[in-house]
């Protein structure tokens, strides 16, 4: 592999990581959604680069799907949902940890991803060595965002970031397994988003809040 290709891979990996941090380092749902949209666009570009490097045409289709579904359709659906929720304060994402602490925790998570991916025996392949830690970092940052936010809406975005990490992880290790599975995964996300939107809508009507701490009727006592 030429050095220039390797450089492109490394730089795009770094940009993707920074875009993922954008989701952590912001307050307010619309900022979040924009950060997610940006991350998805970067992910689509990265996917295209991987497709070019490996020379597998199916990866281009995955890139196109990413661009259309994740950076256009899903943000549109979620924006529509928030608009219909009416009350602005419901969509504010109050993290349990402050933004500063969140950034420090996230940095640790990224370091952990690099450490973990060195422990796992993989054959040396530039695509794997550059993007595997990035994808794991996305996965962990998504998990962190999911448990660190109070509102149900922001949990959905956490789920989406996790899913982006999974997508990159699968792509890097399998080089686009087969189109059926990719399409299946995309369909699952899309339906999942629609269902969670319905739930969010109902939740805000029934509980008059999207705070997941209020969900505590069901327990054993």
């Amino acid at each position, binding site marked *: 592999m030429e050095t220039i290709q390797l450089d492109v891979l490394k730089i795009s990996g770094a940009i993707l990581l920074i875009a993922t941090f954008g989701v952590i380092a912001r307050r307010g749902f619309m900022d979040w959604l924009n950060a997610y949209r940006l991350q998805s666009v970067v992910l689509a570009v990265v996917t295209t680069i991987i497709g070019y490097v490996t020379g597998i045409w199916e990866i281009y289709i995955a890139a196109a799907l990413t661009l259309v579904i994740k950076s256009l359709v899903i943000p549109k659906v979620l924006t529509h949902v928030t608009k219909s929720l009416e009350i602005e304060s419901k969509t504010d994402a109050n993290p349990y940890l402050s933004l500063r602490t969140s950034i420090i925790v996230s940095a640790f998570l990224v370091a952990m991803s690099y450490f973990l991916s060195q422990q*796992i*025996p*993989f*054959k040396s392949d530039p695509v794997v060595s550059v993007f595997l830690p990035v994808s794991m970092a996305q*996965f962990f940052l998504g*998990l962190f965002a*999911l448990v660190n936010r109070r509102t*149900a809406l922001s*949990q959905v975005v956490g*789920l989406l970031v*996790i*899913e982006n990490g*999974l997508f990159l*992880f*699968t792509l890097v*290790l*399998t080089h686009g*397994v*087969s189109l*059926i*599975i990719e399409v*299946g*995964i995309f*369909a*699952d996300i899309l*339906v*999942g988003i629609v*269902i*969670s939107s*319905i*739930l969010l809508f*109902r*939740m805000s009507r*029934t*509980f008059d809040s999207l705070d*997941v701490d209020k*969900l505590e*009727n*069901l327990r*054993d*006592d």
Partner: protein
Amino acid sequence: MNSLSSNLIVVFLLLTPLVGGILVTFFRKKRIIEIVTISSASLVLIQVFFILSIIINEKTLSAFGNAFYIDSFGAVILLPISIVGFVSVLYSKNYMGRQYHIGLVDDRHIVRYYQGLSIFLLSMLVVPITNNLGVMWVTVEATTLISVLLIMLYFKENAIEAAWKYLIIATVGLSFALIGTVFFYYANITAGSSEDAMNWTGMVHNSKLFDPSLVKIAFVFILVGYGTKAGLAPMHTWLPDAHSEAPTPVSALLSGVLLNCALYGIIRFHIVSSGTLGPAFSNQLLIILGVVSIGIAAASIYFQKDMKRMLAYSSVEHMGIVSLGIGFGGLFGIYGAILQIINHAIAKPLMFFASGTVSQKYETKVMSKIKGIIQVMPITGALFLIGGFALVGMPPFNIFLSEFLVLSSGFQSGQFLVTIIVISFLVITFAVFLRHLIKMTFGNPVTEMKKDDMGKLAIVPMAILASLVIIFGFYIPEQLQTLVHNASSIINGGSMT
């Protein structure tokens, strides 16, 4: 069996519920919807029996190249799906009819409910017959989404809460399973496989060449991922909420069948991992999760006040027993575990149906407010008792036999301490569950109630299940024995088929 006819078998099996679901959308009349769904579910049942008869004779059935692959193990999962699917649809007619009558649901809900039920059945049918482990993941994820829709049918406060927790926890959990699946795939291609490396048959064939440390990590991810969906403790937290808030027929499907589908995924990977590492590694993990599940279930049942939540925790317990049986290994343990899967899938829906009818009659799920079921509804009360006795593992009902096999295999494999701990947990569950059961069944009802069994169609599905519970306690048909035996030898090493 030539390839064309096996392709047709698979196509018809999957088309039946799909067409059923689509037809429901067009007709929109409650009466016709019910007839369509019941006939499609019974067609599925007939086709599954036909497939089973082929598997008993020919051991395997593959269709569309190797994309679909049914062996004896897939068949023993397919059987409960079709049986419980059929009785749930039958019970739905009465249950949803009653909800419709009192105005809890309207026509739109009914259409949505039966659509969801058919598609739910379809997605569960794909899991045990697909050979591609990626497709299996996609369909298990699809079952989550569809069952979330079914749980939140009423948009009641508790149902929304349960659905939300279930959606988030199960989706995050399953993302671990996808990582595990990809690791296994990667181990397969680095071991030199190129053709259909995602197929289970290919993986088992190649498993001796896999990188052992990669397989260890991969199996842990699989166990966490599918374990969440199978309700194994400590990842079970969503289960009591979701199973108790769903409409009763859906609870029966979730508890009796869907949990098995997730366990099926774990066991498939357990077979691959045993090929690489030997069985010791995954067995140990399965035993640990099994014991923790049984323990947590015992503690939760001890403090339980809600009838349906108690049944949900009992599912955690039984999934623990299955996982324990697979972990103990040996032909006995695995045979017992598979029998336990089938027995639990019969007894749990019976119990859910009975308690659903009871809670409709008493208008509560709190156990201390339910008394004298046998006086108010004699037939339902008797069936309720049979189901309860079976669930706690009382002889001569069916679960006694499988639990006995699992526990004796524990002693055989020399795991005395573990087995004794498990037995003490089971004794606690036995005593507490039985006390609740007897308090609810006998005594005098708190308020004066009309003696009424809530309609024949509620009784028929329960009677079918109850007779199976009793029959399987004494006698297991020879064909089923062959099937379970073949499935056990697939899990026990693969070479014996």
